[in-house]
């Protein structure tokens, strides 16, 4: 197994950790680690396939996703003084199993189509990209903590960026910049909303947001 495949599997494992760990600081730390792995994959792909654009992506992703986003999230956790997440849908142990099971199943079923049109045909990396994306989607659905949901957003952003690197690394550099900029603004805005949510509900448990049903 090549190094790049091992790193891709590490991305899957770290996505499970980001999803499942109760301690919020630890989750953010693991997310930073996952993004560092993503940066490494970008760099290795850049060398292996002479995809020079990915080298630049790696630099941009390092500053935005390894440094900036975790810093924002650490500041958020510090400001709100929260340590652990609230009880998720289905419980702490069941929800990661459901999320990982479905994510892998979905990734295995759609990766062949993606692989057919991928510029870089790395099967395991592509499976990892879809899995990380789906872990993010399930994170939104199954975790109740607002911070965990922001992390879920970051997870599926990582999944999409890895897919983008494999399938469209030769696209205009402004494209990557536009998508990254959107993601950072989204994290900042979600963080501000999380603070407002905490002030309004005295909790980050989004299942308490039931005033507008019907």
């Amino acid at each position, binding site marked *: 197994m090549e190094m790049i495949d091992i790193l891709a599997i590490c991305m899957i494992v770290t996505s499970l950790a980001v999803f499942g760990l109760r301690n919020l600081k630890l989750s953010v730390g693991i997310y930073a680690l996952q993004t560092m792995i993503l940066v490494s994959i970008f760099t290795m792909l850049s060398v292996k396939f002479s995809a020079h654009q990915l080298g630049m992506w790696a630099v941009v992703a390092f500053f935005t996703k390894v440094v900036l986003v975790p810093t924002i999230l650490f500041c958020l956790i510090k400001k709100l003084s929260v340590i652990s997440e609230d009880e998720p849908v289905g419980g702490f142990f069941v929800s990661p199993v459901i999320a990982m099971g479905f994510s892998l199943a979905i990734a295995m079923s759609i990766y062949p189509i*993606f692989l057919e049109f*991928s510029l870089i045909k790395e099967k395991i990396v592509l499976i990892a990209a879809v899995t990380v994306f789906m872990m993010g989607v399930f994170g939104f659905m199954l975790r109740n903590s607002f911070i965990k*949901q922001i992390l879920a957003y970051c997870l599926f952003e990582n999944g999409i960026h890895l897919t983008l690197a494999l399938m469209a690394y030769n696209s205009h550099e402004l494209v990557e910049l536009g998508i990254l900029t959107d993601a950072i603004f*989204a994290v900042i805005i979600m963080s501000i*909303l999380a603070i407002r949510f905490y002030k309004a509900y005295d909790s980050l448990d989004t299942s308490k947001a039931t005033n507008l049903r019907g």
Partner: protein
Amino acid sequence: MDSLTLILILPLVGALILFLSSKNYATLSIIHVIVSGITSLALLFNVYKVLVSGTFFSYDKFLFLDSLGAVFLVLIAITGFLVNLYSTIYMRWEFEEKHINLVDLRRYYGLCHVFIFTMTLSVICNNIAFMWAAIEATTLASVFLVAIHKDKKSTESGYKYIVLCSIGLAFALYATVLLYSVTFTTTQNSDTAMLWTTIMSSAKGLNENAMKLIFVFALIGFGTKAGLAPTHTWLPDVHAQGPAPISALLSGVLLKCAMLAILRYYAVTASATSFEFVQSIMLISGTITLFVAGIFLIRQHDVKRMFAYHSVVHMGVIAFALGIGGELGVFAAIFHCLAHSFTKALAFCSTGNIARIYGTKDMTKMGGMIKIAPVTTIMFAAAVCSLVGVPAFAIFVSEFLVFKGAIVTGQYFAVALFAIALAIIFIADFSHFNMASFGEPKGEVLHNKEMKFIENLPLILLCVLIIVFGVWHVDSFFTLVENGVKIIMGV
């Protein structure tokens, strides 16, 4: 500087001026209206350019404007301006009642122009990834417009808005990436494979199975933003909580920007696969949306939630029209975007007046509005009449065309479903309208008189537009729509 760049820069400059302006109500409102007016004129100038000389490009084809995009620029220009004009009136009431302060007001006006910028960008982007980024940015720009108040309900609406739209649009990004790869595989040109114009011109050679997956992803993604069931759930909450003018902008313009993205994916997929495939998907999506929203509509007593469900219903009508397909169906879908934009802007702006009169949005606590505020009641009635498709109002035109298109193509079962859905909406709407407008007031009346003429002016203009487009054949606009149909049909 070319004219497409200008319409992106103007609202941004306007927003910057507003963010840096003094905290004075009159100054902020005047700047807001002036910037809106100038932006709208610039937008209409671009529409005029399309009418005169057809599609044109900017920035190495990164930006473009074709007839289809021009239709949606018309919505941003006209609905955007009239709603922004009404904003100054509505926000004055909010300010006088101390619901907001000048800092909030300045932020509100500034963000309105950032919002207009993002919507404009989404319409004129030739690059599919930038179009996605622009549509995602519309959410980011408008979330604090929706959640302008800092109470529980407002925060909850902002949270639901950003979370649901972000999840949905993530699927749209996947569709975008996959569409690029599929196009690149065919064209082998990385510079142009992300451009709509290239994708559309080479659509016939794209892989059919991949395009089907892409269309489903795009429909989930942009459909969430457009308010198609079952991912419409953010929409009633957001409309119910946002200020009336923001609800008008969201419903009148924003939903249509997402619908434009669906229209473009519809065109490419239809060309690559078949019209039968996209039509059947849209027919299913439209029918589900019509009935789900129709059922929820019946039991709504909150006037803004009622109109929010109407937005969902009418997104269902547009999807249904695309499902009927053919030139008539596609024409109806595009025309409905305009008709619904003006109608819904009028509807939501009239809820601003209603909320001022009764201090509540609960229609069971209203009554007797015709005696208190006859002009507002007439505007409210015009909105309701148009929404249910009464003849001589704009929405009648598109709904009639849906019926005609379905009958011409022999889709009788679809026509029957459509008629049932419209009947549900008709009954729900007029019962609600009667509840609020006639009889004796059932609750408190805070403002026991009609608004001033100048305060009702944006509503009156919107009402005139609805009737104009319902009665007359507006040649220039119809030309744009017909050319838009040709683009989608690949003619």
